[in-house]
């Protein structure tokens, strides 16, 4: 299964499942990343982490380790 972490800059994907539990998962969901959301990978920070995503029309930065919790299907 592909996770958001493996997506390259400029690619888009649809979220298929969120792994994990608790605060981090809830926060990711609260920010609008849920099953079915389309995510566009805008860029990766200059030092290689975190990632910048475009979700629901705004910019969100998520650490790669947390991106690993987000399973996606590439568009």
């Amino acid at each position, binding site marked *: 299964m592909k996770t958001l972490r493996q997506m390259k800059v400029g690619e888009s994907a649809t979220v298929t499942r969120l792994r994990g539990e608790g605060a981090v998962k809830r926060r990711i969901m609260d920010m609008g990343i849920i099953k079915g959301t389309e995510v566009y990978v805008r860029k990766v*920070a*200059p030092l290689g982490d975190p990632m910048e995503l475009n979700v629901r029309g705004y910019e969100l930065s998520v650490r790669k380790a947390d991106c690993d919790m987000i399973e996606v299907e590439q568009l």
Partner: protein
Amino acid sequence: MRLTIALAGNPNSGKSTMFNDLTGSNQYVGNWPGVTVEKKEGKLKGMPGVVIQDLPGIYSLSPYTLEEVVSRNYLINEKPGAIINIVDGSNLERNLYLTTQLMEIGIPMVIALNMIDVVRKNGDTINVKKLSEALGCDIVETSALKGEGSVQVAQRAGELAKIGYQGERAHVFGGTVEHSIAHIEDLIRDKVEERYLRWYSIKLFERDEKVMEQLKLSPDILKNIENITADCEKEMDDDAESIVTNERYAYISRLMQSCLIKKPRKGNMTVSDRIDRVVTNRFLALPIFVAVMFVMYYIAVTTIGAIVTDFTNDTLFGAWIMEPLAAWLEGAGTAGWLSSLVVDGIIGGVGAVLGFVPQMLILFLMLAILEDVGYMARVAFIMDRIFRRFGLSGKSFIPMLIGSGCSVPGIMASRTIENERDRRMTVMTTSFIPCGAKMPIVALIAGAIFGNAWWVAPSCYFIGVAAVIVSGVILKKTRMFAGEPAPFVMELPTYHAPAASNVLRSMWERGWSFIRRAGTIILLASMGIWFFSSFGIIDGAFVMADMEESMLAAAGNFMAPLFAPLGFGNWRATVATVMGLVAKEEIVGVLGVLARVSGDALELVEEGAFAGLAGIAGMFTTASAFAYLLFNLLCAPCFAAIGAMRREMNSGKWTWFAVGYLCVFAYAVAMIYYQLASLFTTGAFTVATTVAVILLFALIYLLFRKPADYASAGIKQKQLRAGV
């Protein structure tokens, strides 16, 4: 009648601008009880008796972050008359997510559809009437930045508060979930107030632990609720929290389709995206970051900052206040001790602290601009990779950088760090970075003892940075800083031009909170030190004495053996260290006085006339001198900085812990250095050497040990309690 209206909304939704617009200068800033979350309230302009309570900027009402818990506790327990929900119209989808949660609380609510000017400029159209009907809430279009609509929103909120609870609003969820919620409502109907029934039921459905604890439901009811939730989860094939979140966003998506017409754009790049393409670009981001930091440091610390600090310290407090006052007191025949108390104790002490204020204001101004523009979030984005390894935030870079000028504004700059744990860690470690006032000690030791060796000063910065890293790694693994990792899921807000009123207000609030502290705790501490250093018992009489015969010297004699394992177990060095609490550069001056150096030691150091400082040099060996330097670089900072720590931690306990940690860490490092240096130079292996070696291994152990898994231990306990 007093009416309270709560102001709730996402971060970056223009909430603080709206708050300033509504309240003007009638604001009170404090902290929410027991936490470091800022609490602001103010009187509504033009409507006497109405108080606006600003809630922290939040994205949700989950039980996981301090800000969110503080907000929901306020809404449920303090029962404000009405809520103004600020919604950023240019980022409608995510902003409405919080709205769907606020709607569930049975408090009258009006939506301020903010940044409507941006929406129009983008060419988008929001069908306000339709949206308002769907949500069951009044909506007023506003542009807080331009002062549009704020008054109408407040008026409407006031009217709604008079009407009161009007029954449940639109139902957000689908049939299955609504069905479960209805069942839960039946179970707890007699336990909670009717208007909060829906909110509590949804929280119970989500298995919100905070609510479960608060309601103290019987095991029977809890079991029933668990069955209802589990059934729904089974049917929907997901966990309750996810189901609720999914359905909220699904509901909002439907609203978007019917109420929002977006003008098609070329590509998906906005102006803000284009700025970001440069500012956080792979290759340009770091050079731009360095340039921004350099400009900030150059203005706030090197040039304007240094000029205003020198002016307030030397000219304003020195030449304009202290000298004439001393002359006047003498002329008026005031007793020597009184004039010394006023001039040296009070004015000297407070002046040393207030001297930082102009520089701090300049710095806070620039920080406020960086925050308001939206660059601060990018700083965290760029630096996160490095800093999070040490339990710090990417934003910790700024406090550390400023701390190299002065720890006080550095510590106060940590306020931009959202996460409480990261902020505490930053506050605790910022004073390790050698500040400007520590430079004279460095110059003294380097010049008078090491023959102006080039490596002394750079090694101090290196040691400071190393101390930050080592402490970060060690503390991160302790119980106090353990727990679930803070999610770094951060919005990168749209860039916008800074609003002068916001920026100035933010600058003044921070400056003022420091000034207030200078007037209380720092003043008392300075007076205490003055008292102990100016009075002593001579020939059985309690009289005003030179420092050598003061109580402080007596205490220094008593404490000196404590520092013997560090190589400087003499009372002069001890007294100078204690005086460093007033201001670190005092150490040099006091050493000069106590070593009977002719002239002002501080000036001699500045002039590089180290020959005249032989008296001080005679007190140390090379090993003990460097150990003394190490201890003074790393131990508790001056009172002003401790006051700033107290302010930012909002807890006496944490402040004491921080100061204690700094002292113990400094002691351990200086001792390890001195004992090992002595061992290599003299070959003498003593008990103290053994202790130092043990300390060194303890330090290495703390650094590399595997952190105990407090987080999962906590989860296990919860599972045990829940009977899983």
